């Protein structure tokens, strides 16, 4: 699991989020990288500096900025198969995604957090050609803002045969542990009609039934 809390330039989070939405539903997803990236689920959430938590308790918090102007915050959650590095590097094969990652990195505000001339700073990565030319720096940048631990695997009903020597700081539950995106999509032994149900491109917009919130009296 990846769970990022990215500091964004003040006033930019909403625009950034709108662009991310366009990228997600974009017409050209490029080559089908789903088996390779193994992404099951992801979520993004923008938090404008100074806005209260959307629920009754404090949730995410924007980072304090320099000169009293707080930074916006972008929260990113992704659940994926296998190791972090091959998962992220798989995205580098798609120029549209690389452009999207560069856009996000370019809108980060690390003032007061990391020196601009630090090789792993967002500013330095962008100044030197972007994420694809600086993968190791990009990985370190992500890890700087990653609440999750990329070495903690999902746990299912049977537990894990080789637990880490120390208890993990969180549990990531899985109802189908070991079921990878690759296995779902596999043409020979995967989910029947996976290719038709979830085409890599040209998928029709999904019409969801209206959701009903729980009744609160």
């Amino acid at each position, binding site marked *: 699991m990846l769970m990022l809390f990215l500091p964004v330039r003040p006033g930019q989070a909403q625009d950034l989020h709108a662009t991310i939405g366009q990228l997600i539903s974009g017409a050209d997803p490029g080559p089908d990288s789903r088996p390779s990236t193994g992404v099951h689920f992801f979520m993004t959430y923008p938090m404008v500096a100074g806005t209260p938590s959307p629920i009754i308790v404090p949730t995410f918090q924007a980072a304090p900025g320099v000169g009293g102007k707080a930074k916006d915050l972008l929260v990113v959650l992704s659940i994926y198969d*296998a190791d972090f590095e091959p998962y992220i590097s798989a995205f580098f094969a798609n120029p549209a995604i690389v452009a999207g990652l560069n856009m996000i990195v370019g809108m980060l505000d690390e003032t007061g957090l990391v020196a601009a001339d630090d090789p792993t700073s967002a500013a330095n990565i962008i100044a030197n050609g972007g994420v694809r030319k600086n993968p190791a720096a990009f990985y370190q940048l992500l890890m700087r803002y990653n609440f999750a631990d990329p070495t903690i695997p999902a746990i299912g009903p049977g537990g894990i045969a080789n637990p880490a020597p120390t208890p993990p700081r969180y549990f990531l539950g899985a109802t189908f542990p070991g079921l990878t995106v690759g296995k779902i999509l596999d043409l020979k032994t995967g989910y029947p009609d996976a290719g038709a149900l979830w085409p890599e491109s040209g998928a029709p917009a999904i019409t969801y039934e209206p959701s009903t919130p729980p009744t609160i009296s």
Partner: protein
Amino acid sequence: MRSPNPAGVSALDLPDIQGLLLHGYKGYDFIRHLIFRIADPTGVQALCKALAPGSGGALSITDSTQWPSVKAKPPYRLNIAFTQTGLAKLITDANYRIVASRSNTLVDAFGSGAVARAGKVGDVGTNDPKNWWRTDGWQLPTPPDLAQDFDLILSLYAQTPAGRDSWCGTLLSMIPAGAAVLTFRQDADPLPEGPDFIHFGYRDGISQPRLQDAPPTLPGTSPPGAPPGAATSLARAASGDDPDDRPIVPSWYFIIADAEAPTYNTHPFLVNGSFGAFRLLAQDVGRFNEMIARDSNPELLAAKMCGRWRDGTPLEVSADSPDPSLTGFDLTNFDYQTPSLHQKGKPLDLGDTGQRCPYASHIRRSNPRDDTSVIGNSGDGNAMAVQHRVLRRAQPFGPPYAAGDQENRGLVGYFIGAVLSQQFEFIMGSWITHGGFAGNDHSPNSGGFDALFGPPPPPPQQSPGAGLFYYCEDAGDPSNPADYTKVDGVTQIVTTQGGLYVFFPSLTALGLMASGRIA
């Protein structure tokens, strides 16, 4: 795009690129690797100057230019590479920092060195650096000092053992007195089966990356890295047909380029050079033989572990037995998900799940080709299956195996790529070692580990499926665990005995180093 590289035409600056990077030196099978600690940088700078082509020295570094003809083949080949400590000694720490600051991705692994990065490539447990270099090749009375004793490698390739001794003597005489201390020496010799075979009995080095713009060694012959018999395949090809299905890899993955490389930045000092992992790998032939002998079909098990029959026949092309009719590009023309254009044999149904060629087989893990279910192997065209490749320049060392002997033997040489972290380390860490290799692997232990390398060194309870290798024959159902043959007791048969991350300077850079400069 797939098109043959016209013979004799190259956009690369061949006279500036060390020959080992673009040529496999076929016929130069008697090799000597000499590792030195630099004691006097000024003396080694003088050596660099003397070794530069055209300097008039007794020997000179081999570049990548083509030989004019078979008759004009030079009597030896010689290349030079430096570790980070060696490079910094010659160009100064300050200059190294300048180069590194403009080349972060390129020097990411090199700057740390093989010892510091050992964990990323499975060099833990018995492979741990604390055990390295403790073989007969160690030249000093004191134990190896991993931080001090490894600055420079000279690799000499000769056509005969006597030629190797003779040229080595000349080479050593060129080193100014007190300039460098020989710390390790390792010869590599061909096995009786032939120069392409390794101690486990497999034909090796068949499927090298096909580099864009790389010229053949001789005009009119097959390009470097082509499989045995490739020249015949080329001669038989119809006009306009490219018989080589291997995807063309942009040369900047292996020869450092300035402007066009989209995956790294570089200081000009590094241009036309490359990086490599020098590896000394022991191979336990006795244990391997004992392991496969326990199976009802030892040769099939050996093929399933490698992905090829021992003669090089790919399992994906011939599932039941070696096929001696295959030659040249027949040995490399295959893919896993969709048959390549000239692929021989009858492929399995579309959508391979590792049934014929197991995901735990060595060639599949080190080069997954078109299989986009492999984590980190996405993209299309050249982006897929070419971004994580290495050039292999490694040969067997030690005597041929005799039943029961305890001789040290294995493989020694270079695994070359411009970005070690994305090429050598990625393959070793993410593909060779880790079980989560392919998302659609249905074998009972999800592929586990590379069968030829054996399970990772940590205790078995830390590695799911440690010691187990599964394979499914064509008649089986890969989604049914009961249809897999379970091989128990698979153990580590390859042990790292030494490792260095090195830089192969261009001839221009070598000239600069001779005067301690970077520009």
